[in-house]
């Protein structure tokens, strides 16, 4: 029997999208002095809302507000008091989770299934987790009384707008810092709903400031002399520029940049689950994940059968309207990003890699791309070396474990890797040999606030999540007890 699922759209009314959003500075929503920007729903390609953006003077005001809040209130509070605020925010996120999921899907283009089951609950978990640390900083192993740094300037990307906000804000506040944070220009809405939750939690004015705008605002923020700590998640190119600009200052910095994760499948792997893991690794969030497993390394002895299974499974992915609860792969975040991915696809074909794409139908309007796989790619091709940041998997083969390690490490990046084998000793050996910040064993793209996340090499430095993530927001130079 042919069985078509009827469309099962989540109601967009739940998001209660306003016609205009304002930046959040010093405890209130204020018109910014920059130019207005429209934000687009990638699922339809239509305007979603308009956001007032800030200029350099607004950045200055926000940093000053954060400084005042740091000195007058936030750094004076006990850890337990800070923890109370964080718990309140976590509960606020949980209470408004459905609304946040819909806002995120409308603004970002990722499927509602992911925002509902991953982005929003994980964001709440980050606040819950860090709330628990706020009064226990002396037990982090960083000394008897680790101190906050001051004002943190944070810039986050568009691929996980709310979750990245949580990753940045929660540890900063738990450690006693105040925050000035800038979301990406294409996805400012969910963090502005978070601002409402923060306001409702009665956080002292200026503890969290949210500045809207494009790269110029981010640049003004991270180079502002009133900032004590810079945290950036985004592209390696921008990360490089930030590091250059901050060289010679005493500002602490952590960068979480691009990646070209290797997902390594051995011939003794649990193949059906490896197929699932490869798909989760590259098609989760349309592949717009810095730690995506975008390079499949499969042992040659099973390569043909494995790729056949993989393609069959990719054919069953449901691509389309992000608001449909049965959609597996949604829209690419922006027209510009779709253009970048398409350009790299063309480059791959020109270099002689074979492109296979799922035959799924795509919606007419909005920014969509079929899940795609490059077969017979070689290590020298651009599609093997460069981060595509889209639903495109590049496949290579290897013969021996050593060759797998060599090929996996042969990348300027080093953020994530996956190892698929039923042999525990091999998994451990690979984990020791791979130069990646995160290594998943028989799974992929699993996140937890207790586990630290971060990169090697050009994927950045510093860790987020877990005790080492908190260390990035604490003064650990003095009295470090190891």
């Amino acid at each position, binding site marked *: *029997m*042919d*069985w*078509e*699922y*009827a*469309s*099962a759209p989540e109601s967009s009314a739940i998001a209660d999208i306003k016609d205009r959003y304002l930046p959040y500075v010093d405890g209130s929503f204020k018109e910014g002095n920059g130019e207005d920007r429209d934000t687009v729903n990638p699922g339809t390609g239509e305007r979603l809302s308009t956001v007032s953006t800030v200029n350099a003077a607004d950045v200055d005001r926000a940093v000053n507000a954060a400084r005042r809040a740091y000195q007058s209130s936030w750094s004076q509070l006990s850890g337990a008091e800070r923890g109370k605020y964080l718990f309140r925010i976590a509960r606020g996120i949980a209470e408004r989770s459905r609304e946040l999921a819909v806002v995120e899907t409308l603004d970002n283009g990722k499927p509602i*299934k992911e925002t509902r*089951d991953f982005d929003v609950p994980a964001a709440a978990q980050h606040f819950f987790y860090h709330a628990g640390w706020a009064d226990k900083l002396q037990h982090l192993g960083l000394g008897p009384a680790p101190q906050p740094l001051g004002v943190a300037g944070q810039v986050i990307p568009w691929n996980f707008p709310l979750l990245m906000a949580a990753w940045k804000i929660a540890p900063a506040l738990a450690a006693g810092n105040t925050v000035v944070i800038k979301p990406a220009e294409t996805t400012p809405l969910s963090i502005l709903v978070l601002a409402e939750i923060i306001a409702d939690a009665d956080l002292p004015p200026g503890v969290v400031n949210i500045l809207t705008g494009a790269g110029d605002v981010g640049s003004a923020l991270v180079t502002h002399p009133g900032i004590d700590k810079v945290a950036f998640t985004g592209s390696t190119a921008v990360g490089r520029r930030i590091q250059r600009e901050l060289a010679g200052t005493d500002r602490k910095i952590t960068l979480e940049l691009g990646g070209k994760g290797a997902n390594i499948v051995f011939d*003794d*792997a*649990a*193949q*059906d*689950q*490896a197929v*699932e*893991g490869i798909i989760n690794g590259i098609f989760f969030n349309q592949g717009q994940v810095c730690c995506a497993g975008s390079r499949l390394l499969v042992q040659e002895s099973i390569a043909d059968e494995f790729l056949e299974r993989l393609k069959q499974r990719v054919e*069953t992915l449901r691509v389309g309207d992000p608001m449909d*609860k*049965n959609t597996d792969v949604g829209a690419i975040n922006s027209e510009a990003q779709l253009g970048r991915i398409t350009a790299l696809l063309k480059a791959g074909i020109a270099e002689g890699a074979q492109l296979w794409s799922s035959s799924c139908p795509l919606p007419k309007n909005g920014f969509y791309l079929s899940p795609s796989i490059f077969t017979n790619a070689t290590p020298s091709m651009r599609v093997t070396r460069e981060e595509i940041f889209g639903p495109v998997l590049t496949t290579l083969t290897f013969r021996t474990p050593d060759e797998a390690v060599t090929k996996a490490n042969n990348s300027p990046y080093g953020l994530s890797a996956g190892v698929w084998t*039923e042999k525990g000793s091999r998994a451990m050996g690979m984990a020791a040999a791979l130069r990646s910040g995160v290594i998943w064993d*028989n*799974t992929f793209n699993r996140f937890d606030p207790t586990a630290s996340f971060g990169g090697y090499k050009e994927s950045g430095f510093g860790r987020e999540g877990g005790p080492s993530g908190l260390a990035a927001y604490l003064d650990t130079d003095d009295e470090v007890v190891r």
Partner: protein
Amino acid sequence: MICDHFVPQGAVVTASCRCADSEHLYYRKYENAGASDTVRHCADQRCRLAGSIMNSVSRQGRDLSVVPTGVLPPHLADATADEISIRRFLFGLPGVDPVGIEQRAAGLATRSIKRASKLAAIDLAISMVDLTTLEGADTPGKVRNLARKAMLPDPDFPETPQAAAICVYPDMVHTAGTELEGSGVKVASVATAFPSGRSSLEVKLADTKIGVDGGADEIDMVIDRGAFLAGRYGRVFEQIVAVKEACGDARLKVILETGELATYDNVRRASWLALLAGADFIKTSTGKITPAATLPVVHVMLQAVKDWKAQTGEQRAVKPAGGIRTAKDAIRYLVAVHEVAGHEWLDPYYFRFGASSVLNDLIMQRRAQLDGHYSGADYVTVD
């Protein structure tokens, strides 16, 4: 060794064995084959190893093609040569990662099935129910009630599909068959010292014979879990083969009792063992052991029949049993069938639910879809 091969409905089929030894020649012809007619192949193992069985399938008297079907590819034929080969084959199957399969099953369970697709799923699920009573207290009256229910699940909505079968103990087969005569609802009989399977092969075969002689269309056997867990795979294999022979034209469901096999690796091995031995269905559970059917276990079994089809061209069936109580549960299984095995399995010939209480919930949900509101449990007959 006997290999039954499914014939396309309405086809005129001639099947012959072309191995060198003329003694093995087997020939059978169907005019207008029915949905459940099968071609029986040469009974000789060597013949199958040689891969020499050819079927000539023609429709309306015209030869369409001569295709080798029902022939196991050499690696599968070799797998059952002896105990050591069976073990080697089963241990050579890729493992199943529990975290991964449970994650996938939980993910698919979030599919949102609405409106027309929900009604279609409910009707399909009803037509897949093997309405079951397997109690010591079963009486002819109880079985007759159940048979009536299977034929007419919802008297207020007579267009509601019939259940696929009723499933009873062997001594109740005749009662059930008499009641169901001419209805199209099949009679399934459990057998082989159900539910434990703890008896001799002679007793198991005699048990099977009671069901078959009573007119059962389908036999639900249990495997010897003790032998399986002790690693005596050859013994399990031979018993299935023997019961399959005793089944004659009845379709054989092989109950793996996955709750006792415990690991997904074992479920995969037992599934392949049963398929190799000629099971028409692989079935999860007796319903007497907890856990009975679970979504991840059925994922493993659906993957097995899908892989079996990819390697042999032959489509076999799956039956989860026990623990499926609500329409929501049933729809989750159908989603798994649809997305793991494929839409070809969305057919009562290839997928069944072993259950009893689920039927009434399906009927209630069906009414809710048609009426636009829920009516109480008292509007659905309790049989």
